[in-house]
């Protein structure tokens, strides 16, 4: 778009000001000396020339600014302090399987330091590049995708995205960590969708303001897989679909995922099923004086390769026998197991600056097996310092069965305090 009117406005204002100043000087001269007035027409002509020059400069500048406005930088930093319950346990971080850091019960660290660059090329296309630092990693590419919007509907309600992006499944995955009420996602999500992102193609159709469907085809490994991003060992691609109805105070979606998982062995690899069915719902309400609140829940069910089964059924290579094989008598079909995961969460805002959250999440990676379940209660308080910064204090109470001698089990002392300061820009 051009900027002629704004420049013309500047011209008019400048001309009026300078001409008024000239007129004032002229008036003073006429009072004192009564000499002939200066050539006003020449002055205006000179001013015209100057202002035309300025107009060209301003037009160029505004054109450049218009291009720059197509770039949008955003991001956030999460600086964190963690302390576990006893010195005998390590601080746990998210992952699949959950990663135990070296013995280190208290630490400061950067959980997430993210920078996103969005370029709105035109009303019909957009490109995004998103980097992540923190969590003891080097800087890595988190997302990079191109979105094309359809030209045939007025509001461009069909969008095709190609590249590396969030897996379109459920509610938690696509919800930015910068807006989540608790520092980490549920265990089921962490295990089933480690890293939350993958490479592929996604079609989003906004059929009405309230109803949306998503179809996607992706490699299936996810960005935290060791092979990523060079190979897709399953060759066949994973398929996912989601339908969401967003009424406003009650939203809900159903998600489906199907694919194959490859367990590499010396010789033929083993292929197992990878299926996920998900339901999620969010209910919002308002309490007079206190503020808004919500109840949220999500369920994950299906079949997935099981980390414990891998340990139990596969003989890992050693220096004496450098091959990776199934143990004698092991059934490769048992590498994958039926799982169930879910969470329920209550969020209550208190006034403008506070928010309290309670979440209970559970994950059973093999519901034919006892003592492998994980459950956790998370309590959190958010204090919103301003529109960009918040402080989160959370307390996680995980419950797991640790095998003891004599067939007994106990729950290790691994409760976790987290204090996090986040600034979003």
């Amino acid at each position, binding site marked *: 778009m051009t*900027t002629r*009117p704004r420049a013309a406005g500047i011209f008019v204002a400048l001309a009026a000001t300078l001409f008024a100043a000239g007129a004032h000087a002229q008036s003073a001269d006429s009072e004192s000396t009564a000499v002939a007035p200066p050539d006003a027409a020449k002055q205006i002509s000179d001013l015209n020339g100057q202002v035309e020059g300025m107009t060209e400069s301003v037009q160029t500048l505004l054109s450049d600014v218009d291009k720059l406005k197509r770039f949008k930088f955003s991001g956030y930093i999460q600086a964190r302090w963690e302390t576990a319950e006893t010195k005998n346990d390590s601080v746990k971080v998210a992952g699949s399987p959950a990663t135990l850091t070296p013995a280190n019960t208290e630490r400061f660290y950067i959980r997430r330091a993210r920078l996103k660059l969005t370029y709105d090329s035109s009303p019909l296309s957009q490109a995004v590049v998103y980097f992540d630092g923190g969590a003891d990693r080097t800087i890595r590419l988190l997302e990079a995708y191109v979105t094309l919007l359809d030209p045939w509907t007025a509001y461009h309600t069909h969008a095709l995205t190609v590249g590396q992006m969030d897996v379109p499944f459920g509610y938690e995955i696509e919800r930015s960590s910068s807006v989540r009420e608790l520092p980490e996602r549920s265990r089921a999500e962490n295990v089933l969708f480690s890293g939350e992102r993958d490479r592929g193609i996604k079609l989003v159709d906004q059929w009405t303001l309230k109803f949306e469907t998503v179809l996607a085809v992706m490699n299936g490994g996810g960005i935290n897989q060791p092979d990523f991003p060079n190979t897709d060992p399953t060759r066949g691609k994973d398929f996912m679909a989601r339908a969401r109805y967003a009424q*406003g105070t009650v939203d809900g979606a159903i998600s489906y995922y199907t694919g194959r998982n490859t367990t590499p062995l010396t010789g033929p690899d083993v292929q197992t099923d990878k299926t996920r069915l998900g339901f999620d719902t969010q209910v919002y309400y308002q309490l007079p004086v206190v503020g808004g*609140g919500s109840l949220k829940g999500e369920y994950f069910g299906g079949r997935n390769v099981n980390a414990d089964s891998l340990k139990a059924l596969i003989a890992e290579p050693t220096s004496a026998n450098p091959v990776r094989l199934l143990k004698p008598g092991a059934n490769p079909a048992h590498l994958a197991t039926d799982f169930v995961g879910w969470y329920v969460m209550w*969020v209550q805002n208190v006034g403008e600056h506070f928010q309290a959250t309670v979440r209970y999440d559970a994950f059973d990676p093999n519901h034919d097996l006892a003592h492998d379940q994980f459950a956790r209660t998370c309590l959190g*308080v958010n204090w*919103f310092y301003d529109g960009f910064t918040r402080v989160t204090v959370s307390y996680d109470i995980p419950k797991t069965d640790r095998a003891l001698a004599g067939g007994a089990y106990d729950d290790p002392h691994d409760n976790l305090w987290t204090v996090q300061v986040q600034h979003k820009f």
Partner: protein
Amino acid sequence: MKRLIPLAALAAAGLLGVAGSVAAAGRGITVKGSDTMVILAQRWAETYMAGHPGSIVQVTGGGSGTGIAALINGTTDICTASRPMKEDEKRKLRDRFQSMGTEIAVAKDGLSIYLNDQNPVKQLSFAQLRDIYTGTISNWKQVGGNDALIVPYGRENSSGTYVYFKDNVLLGRDYSPRCQTLPGTAAVVNAVVRDPNGIGYGGAAYAKGVKDCAVSKDEKNPAVLPNAATVKDGSYPVTRDLFFYTRVRPAGDTKKFIDWVLSDEGQALATKVGYFPVR
């Protein structure tokens, strides 16, 4: 000791939060957003403060989009908007406040189509306006005017008027690259005053030195000029509500101010400024 540190952090956060809330309570009511509504909101604020000694209402513009962003960021108590909130804006508000916000219609506005006084064109249909602003029609001769290139003027995309016009007149289509973007309704009016081939849109209250164009919704309906009667009865087809938005249901001083805006006195002031009462 280790357990005390998070508790101390929590307590400190609580104390600072309470202190912040007290400080916020002392700063009065902040109103930010629509440039279309800025004059109206200022008049409401001035009159309200005059009648309620000790109360403070601070009004700034910036555009409806800017006001909604401020509402989401928590940097304004009331957002003024000349368009309804978009779904993604509601989602952002909900992410932070678990609330879809409270929408309150506070006045009505006829969105005038401004033409230069010398322009012989007197009326346009929605379809013609859409074609002019999307670039399909580029010469006044195509709509019964002189043989001259049409110069369409519009607002920046942070403007609620920009969004309203796009949604309701252009039916979501993108503006032509030929449309010249200006920072406020007054600037649009000034541009059309100076440009015999210009056309602009904006609040009826700003239409000084330009002529209003009669507008018809389609060929079956007559073209109608914006005035108090046609806006109030809805026969003028480009009529919109002007909104206040709050994060949650208004309470305290904010509620008192909004109640006053909706009172007979507040609504009479809206009429005096050039808008139309909402009830």
